[in-house]
């Protein structure tokens, strides 16, 4: 049963990886303009309903970020109110409590760069190694990685905390970075991708010329792995940027918090005794946090359409 499951999972993930290489131009012009079916008005209308649902909280967030703490309570949520205080809120976000929001932003960037970057590098090297080399223990490594794909990451969060607190690693950035470095699914994607994208004949030719394996990897193979690397990197960046449970459980010191944990701490001030209520800063801080990712998504459309679809198996 376990074997059957792994096989199906592997097959589905493989087809997902293949989608990665085929999404894009393939279907352009599938239907000639002359035979294009008629537009359906009710389909468009119902999609507008879906659109309203998807945009409702975002419109609410943008409108609310222009309000003061007081007018949040007194005005209608989906329309602007006087005074227009977006700028004051922005200043407040970055100056409150000695500008700790800026620190959280830097921490998040560090966790994304080191965590997601490191995870992508490790997954790429290992996927390439599994695809193109034979070595002792290869079958065991493959079995472990495929088995690990099925383990939900959050299930391991509490056990990882228990282990790390024994090792004295909690409340350090390493406690957040180390677990982010391993993505069994990303490694699996790179393995499947490298197997197809890098011709073994080419590697043999490089060996005949006397090039070392590492040099071959960095000068030749890495270029062919580009699209796969971008997909895995996107998955890991989104994962690190949104990470909440792990840093929440690992970190005590607000100076190491990422934005997710920090914003929630601001929000909880309202229900803590003696805590100052700063909903306007939580709201504006949330907006500041999602703007970079939204812009990145808009600019990198071509990549995520292929890349995140390939990550279908993760979620």
């Amino acid at each position, binding site marked *: *049963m376990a074997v*059957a499951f792994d096989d199906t999972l592997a*097959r*589905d993930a493989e087809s*997902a990886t*293949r*989608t990665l*290489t085929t*999404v894009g131009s*393939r*279907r352009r012009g*599938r*239907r000639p303009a002359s035979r294009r*079916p008629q*537009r359906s008005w009710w389909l468009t209308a119902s999609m507008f309903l*879906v659109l309203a649902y*998807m945009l409702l*909280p*975002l419109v*609410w*967030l943008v409108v*609310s970020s222009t309000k003061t703490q007081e007018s949040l*309570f007194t005005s*209608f*949520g*989906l329309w602007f109110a006087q005074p227009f205080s977006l700028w004051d809120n922005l200043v407040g976000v970055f100056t409150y409590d000695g500008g700790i929001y800026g620190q959280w932003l830097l921490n998040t960037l560090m966790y994304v760069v080191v965590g997601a970057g490191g995870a992508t590098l*490790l997954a790429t090297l290992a996927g*390439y190694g*599994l695809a193109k*080399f*034979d*070595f002792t223990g290869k079958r065991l*490594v493959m079995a*472990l990685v495929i088995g*690990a794909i099925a383990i*939900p990451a*959050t*299930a391991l969060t*509490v*056990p990882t905390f*228990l*282990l790390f607190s*024994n090792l004295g690693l909690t409340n350090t950035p390493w406690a957040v970075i180390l677990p982010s470095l*391993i993505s069994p699914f990303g490694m699996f994607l790179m393995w499947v991708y490298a197997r*197809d994208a890098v011709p073994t004949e080419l590697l043999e030719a490089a060996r005949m010329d006397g090039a070392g*394996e*590492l040099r071959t990897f960095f000068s030749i193979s890495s270029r062919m792995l580009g699209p796969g690397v971008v997909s895995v990197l996107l998955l890991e960046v*989104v994962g690190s*940027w949104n990470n909440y*449970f792990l840093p929440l459980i690992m970190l005590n010191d607000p100076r190491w918090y990422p934005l*997710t944990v920090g*914003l929630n701490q601001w929000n909880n001030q309202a229900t803590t005794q003696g805590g100052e209520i700063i909903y306007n800063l939580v709201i504006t801080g*949330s907006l500041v*946090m*999602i703007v970079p*990712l*939204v812009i990145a998504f808009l600019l990198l459309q071509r990549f995520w*359409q292929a890349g*995140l*679809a390939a990550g279908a198996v993760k979620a």
Partner: protein
Amino acid sequence: MTTTLTPSRRTGRGRRGVRGQVGWVFVGPFVAIFLLVLIAPLVYAIWLSFFQDRLIGGVSFVGIANFVDAFTDGQLWSAIGRVMRIMAVQVPVMLLLALFCALAIDSARLAWAPFFRLMVFLPYAVPGVVAALMWGYIYGPRFGLVGDVSSFLGIPLPDPLGPDFVLLAIGNISTWLFTGYNMLVYISALKTIPTDLYEAAELDGAGPFRVIRSIKLPALRPAITITVMFSVIGSFQLFNEPNILRPLSPNVITSDFTPNMYAYTLSFAGGQYNSAATVAIVVGVLTMIAAYAVQFIGARRER
């Protein structure tokens, strides 16, 4: 699809890679950290689950006593019951909505299809924490939209975070966050359908709904299995949304609301590390069983 598959088979199976241990140079770093952050916590949690730490008597081996406790623990089972009730409603609603959007966007009958695809996917760029904060404010009676609408109509609307609606309120956040992602998975599966199938259907005079039933849905089956499986895993592992909404409704969203919140509370508020490890293992295994079951059903249907 078959054209890309054939050469890969040949390089993958027929011709082996380089022999010797040079492969470890590439695989070694990954394996080392993999052992530290995945295997070691797993082994440590299993080890912890066989011990108990009492005020009197200290640490002692207790066999499967912790597991017996977990299986008879009413708090754990009601937490599991809650996530299963959320799952039973939320997963079908979200995936049907995603399927509808994907089929609409793929149909060529929808105006501004690329715009809709982008907008439906946009919430995926929002971190779960921010999504929970936003919806929490919207739900809130004091300055949320629900409160606004309620005072505009002059009638009290039910509190979304009250005991009757809290599961729907939490499910709504997951639906909002992940519909677009699942839609994208379906759209890319639809894009792999060969054009000649549509042409043949057109020649046979098949209408759009016939094409959906006979061509598109069968082609979507593996993608649907995958999305169901990962939605089920996500439901069992629910933590962020209820944890963030909890201050707004502490009597309804209790500290043992979901299995993960229960494990979190056991290890933090209670310092009961052995019980926390046991709960994490039990829930992890249950999650994997559920995931296997979805895979199994999906694979059987495919035949």
